């Protein structure tokens, strides 16, 4: 087995070549120096190499997934229309989404172009290379078109794949208006479950027949989507709305927030806040945000023995030093936290 730390999506092609030569590969974040050499578990098919990826999955906690290379390749969509396409994407190469778009490009004899939310640079690359297709989160694409002024070209790809976070209706409308007749594909997927549903709609809704096509059983209970696989029910961790044979993903149930496609462990934020000086209790929750999909709201209670202003400014500095930027609470709410039913924490504004 080999460990690879791709920096850009283009590096994945070399990973795929290793897999084609029968070598199992563990793909890691280039910044993770503590990854230990972990032997790949036995493949379902003798002689089939496996690709290992760390993903936060449905829990927000990093978890290692191994996927059979042959099975991964079966996910490539082959069509004369998309042979040789240049795909552009801001997805990171050590993520499931990054590997998916890289594999699609590699498997169809195409190319891949890494984008990174540096809008001037991304538009420069788009102007120079004019990618045929793009795979991105709705938030990334929405911001890309918002920063289009001054771009040297009026770019219209042949195809847009959206994924990584729920597609909000107004975002979908803006994308559809900007890209006109482009073919959209909204993909709902999870690392441990693979592709769950696909839809050409830009309002975030999926047909429930998509679930039946991939899972022998599925259910939505109290807005939680669960799927039946290999003899047991698996929670997607997502909250969904359902109506008229359709369903739409609203976001994570609890425990994690999806901030612009990046998962935040809310329990960890809560624990860190409670370790800050002068904070008696704290709860981090996900709240919807029109720009990022979700953001973190921190409800906190100050120990009455401490000065409120000093504690609040200290808390903000403390969390900003301890957490990555996307995990910083954007809403700070000083309130009274109480114990509710079954001793679970309730919070209410003062």
């Amino acid at each position, binding site marked *: 087995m080999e460990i690879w730390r791709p920096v850009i999506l283009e590096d994945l092609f070399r990973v795929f070549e290793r897999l084609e030569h029968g070598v199992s590969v563990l793909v890691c974040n280039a910044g993770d120096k503590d990854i230990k050499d972990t032997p790949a578990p036995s493949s379902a098919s003798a002689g089939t190499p496996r690709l290992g990826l760390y993903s936060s999955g449905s829990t927000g906690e990093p978890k290692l997934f191994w996927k059979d290379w042959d099975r991964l390749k079966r996910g490539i969509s082959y069509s004369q229309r998309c042979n040789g396409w240049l795909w552009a994407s801001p997805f990171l190469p050590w993520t499931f989404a990054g590997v998916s778009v890289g594999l699609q490009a590699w498997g169809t004899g195409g190319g891949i172009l890494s984008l990174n*939310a540096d809008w001037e640079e991304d538009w420069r690359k788009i102007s120079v290379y004019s990618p045929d297709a793009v795979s991105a989160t709705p938030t990334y694409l929405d*911001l890309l078109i918002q*920063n289009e002024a001054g771009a040297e070209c009026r770019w219209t790809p042949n195809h847009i794949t959206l994924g990584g976070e729920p597609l909000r209706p*107004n975002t979908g409308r*803006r994308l559809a208006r900007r890209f006109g007749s482009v073919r959209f594909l909204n993909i709902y997927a999870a690392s441990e479950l693979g592709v769950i549903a696909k839809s050409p709609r830009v309002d975030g809704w999926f047909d429930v027949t998509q679930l039946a096509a991939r899972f022998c059983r599925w259910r939505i209970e109290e807005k939680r989507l669960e799927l039946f696989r290999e003899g047991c029910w698996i929670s997607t961790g997502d909250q969904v709305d359902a109506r008229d044979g359709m369903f739409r993903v609203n976001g994570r149930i609890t425990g994690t927030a999806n901030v*612009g496609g990046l998962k935040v462990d809310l329990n960890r934020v809560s624990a860190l806040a409670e370790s800050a000086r002068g904070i008696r209790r704290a709860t981090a929750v996900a709240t919807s945000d*029109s*720009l990022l999909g979700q953001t973190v709201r921190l409800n906190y209670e100050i120990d009455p023995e401490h000065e409120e202003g000093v504690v609040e400014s200290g808390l903000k500095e403390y969390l900003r030093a301890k957490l990555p*930027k996307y995990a910083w609470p954007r*809403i700070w709410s000083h309130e009274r936290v109480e114990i509710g039913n079954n001793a679970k924490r309730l919070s209410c504004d003062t």
Partner: protein
Amino acid sequence: MNPEELITSLVLKIHKRNGGVLRDFSLDMRLMESALMIDSLDMAEIMVEVEREFGISPFDQLEPPRTWRELIGLIEGRE
């Protein structure tokens, strides 16, 4: 505080937090003009304050603002 004062104050506060040295900026600048050193996460922070202060969610509008002047205009149009 009127919209222009709040927006200017927020932008410069975050700009300074990110290591910037500007003391003023043109309202005709794009929201994430590179000189302002504001990324999407900072933008979300600003929009939370706008929503809290003025009850409007700029990026939920069908035509979201592209410049700071357009954002202020959107807020003033709602007041």
